């Protein structure tokens, strides 16, 4: 009967209850939406970083990553490549030779990371070809083609087909220079690609470095759902002379980003839940104050304080959980819809791309996230009901009966 009374009490002041239910609906909707949005932000960011920059994993000589000394090439790269190509979770593999040097145009010179690549393999691993905004992907230039980022091109004041000179030390320590021609310009959100990299053919770079077929870097991609860390460890145990790293080790910033997003989501949840809690407390206090007489009467008749307390709590939980499922459902519908259609952020994408985001997001929430939200709401409702319920049982029946 307490449950019945509580339920009917919820509907005594329909307007007020509907406001709370509405607030609850909007709150939960906002929560699911924000959760899905942030999740997709993160996923998109990490995916794009893996796709275009780190790949799922890389192999180097253990010393190489420290000072980029070209003598530290990967010794048994052929067996590593063989191993990777055999693995079922590895999608594609590419090899690179690397050297730090200078790039100069007739107007400007600047430091640059020179990356010798195999264009076809590179296209499969990092989709470098998709970043071409002007010119071509190594085509149409017969001798020494180079790709540079748009920012670097601006800085050097060069264009497609312009001549640039790359200068670096070869394996014997001699300063070597090569004359290259810009085949294409890369437009990337990544600062590394757009400002400080020059992509050349590995054969051209290796000839100038005088290092034969040696390579300094292997990058590989894996199929979706692969545990990249476990895979890296597995390769590492097989090839102890080299250093194998997953994207998490290559780019700790991505891991940090993941954690930061999770904390931001938590803060957001706390803010929204607190707002809801205050709304609930306020409404229930009003409901209690309005019913002082009635509550006093119940206690005069012999209703125990514990029961009165319980009644107010149940009433509050009803009030809050009516809006919850509605909000959850609308949130779910929104996420599912946008998850298919995507959110087009093209209008704001300049700023976003600058920090590395894609401009179309596909929000996504895991079932566990919904469960967490439901539990959060019920907990909030319960906590928010304690104060009004406590107020109710503090009433003395005689004073309450006299209150008009």
């Amino acid at each position, binding site marked *: 009967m307490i449950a019945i*009374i509580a339920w009917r009490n919820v509907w005594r002041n329909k307007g007020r209850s509907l406001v709370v239910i509405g607030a609850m609906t909007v709150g939960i909707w906002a929560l699911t939406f924000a959760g899905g949005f942030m999740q997709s932000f993160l996923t998109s960011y990490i995916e794009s970083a893996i796709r275009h920059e780190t790949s799922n994993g890389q192999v180097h000589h253990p010393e190489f990553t420290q000072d980029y000394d070209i003598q530290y090439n990967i010794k048994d790269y052929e067996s590593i490549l063989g191993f990777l190509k055999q693995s079922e979770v590895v999608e594609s593999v590419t090899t690179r030779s690397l050297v730090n040097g200078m790039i100069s145009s007739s107007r400007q010179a600047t430091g640059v990371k020179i990356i010798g690549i195999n264009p076809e393999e590179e296209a499969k691993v990092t989709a470098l070809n998709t970043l071409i905004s002007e010119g071509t992907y190594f085509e149409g230039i017969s001798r020494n083609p180079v790709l540079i980022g748009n920012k670097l091109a601006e800085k050097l004041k060069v264009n497609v087909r312009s001549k640039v000179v790359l200068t670096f030390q070869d394996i014997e320590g001699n300063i070597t220079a090569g004359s290259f021609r810009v085949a294409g310009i890369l437009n990337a959100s990544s600062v590394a690609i757009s400002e400080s990299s020059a992509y050349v053919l590995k054969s051209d770079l290796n000839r100038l470095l005088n290092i034969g077929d040696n390579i300094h870097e292997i990058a590989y991609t894996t199929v979706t759902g692969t545990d990249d860390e476990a895979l890296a460890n597995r390769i590492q145990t097989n090839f102890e002379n080299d250093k194998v790293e997953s994207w998490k080790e290559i780019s700790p910033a991505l891991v940090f980003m993941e954690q930061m997003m999770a904390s931001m989501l938590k803060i957001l949840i706390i803010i929204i839940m607190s707002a809801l809690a205050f709304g609930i407390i306020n409404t229930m206090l009003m409901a209690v104050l309005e019913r002082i007489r009635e509550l006093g009467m119940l206690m005069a*008749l012999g209703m125990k*304080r514990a029961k009165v307390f319980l009644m107010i709590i149940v009433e509050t939980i009803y009030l809050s959980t009516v809006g919850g499922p509605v909000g959850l459902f609308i949130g779910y519908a929104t996420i599912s819809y946008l998850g298919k259609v995507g959110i087009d952020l093209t209008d704001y994408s300049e700023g976003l791309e600058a920090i590395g985001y894609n401009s179309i997001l596909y929000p996504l929430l895991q079932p566990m996230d919904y469960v967490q939200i439901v539990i959060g709401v019920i907990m909030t409702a319960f906590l928010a009901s304690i104060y009004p319920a406590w107020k109710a049982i503090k009433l003395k029946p005689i004073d309450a009966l006299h209150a008009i």
Partner: protein
Amino acid sequence: MSTIIKAINISKVYHKSTVPVHAVNNLSLNIEEGEFTAIVGPSGCGKTTLLNILGGLDQPTEGKVEVDGTDISSMKDSELIDFRLRNIGFVFQAYNLIPVLTARENVEFIMLLQKRNKKERHDRAMELLESMDIADKANSKPSQLSGGQQQRVAVARALASKPRFILADEPTANLDSSSTNNLLDLMAKMNEEQKATFIFSTHDQRVMDKARRIVTLEDGAIVSDVKR
């Protein structure tokens, strides 16, 4: 007949203003089983205060109240709630039914608190509503009933718990004269049929005329006590 209530030298003093108010002043009163007693007197003479003390809703400043030999003036708040549930029926001036429950549910509610089973609750509620001539409104909410009808439900509710006595503070103050007569007749009938002990306050002459004992108060003290 046995004595249910013994009020012994009770006083109630309020110190709200600078002058202390003696709402009840060294009053002693016995109520026997089966009585149909009116507490009368002008407004402010202490009727409500007295009934509240007899009902364990308020504590006397001095003296004590015994119900069936138990001193209720020294009981703890939580004990009193339980005591009221088992021993006392209340009828209030403003009806005070639970607005979200139907007439029948209101009557059943008190038996539910007493943990009676469902069938017993239902049967007794319907029986009482019939006795109070309001069974046809069993499924109506209080807001759909007139004042007189609501008060009849309230009396049925008060009787439902099979209390030792029923306290009714000015039960007819908000009713017109025909509803007043009707309610008093029904109360008198329940007094006869169910041997229910009623103590009600009033300042209405027609209501006093129906009582079988009239206790008149003035400034918190009994000035006359007439049995008829």
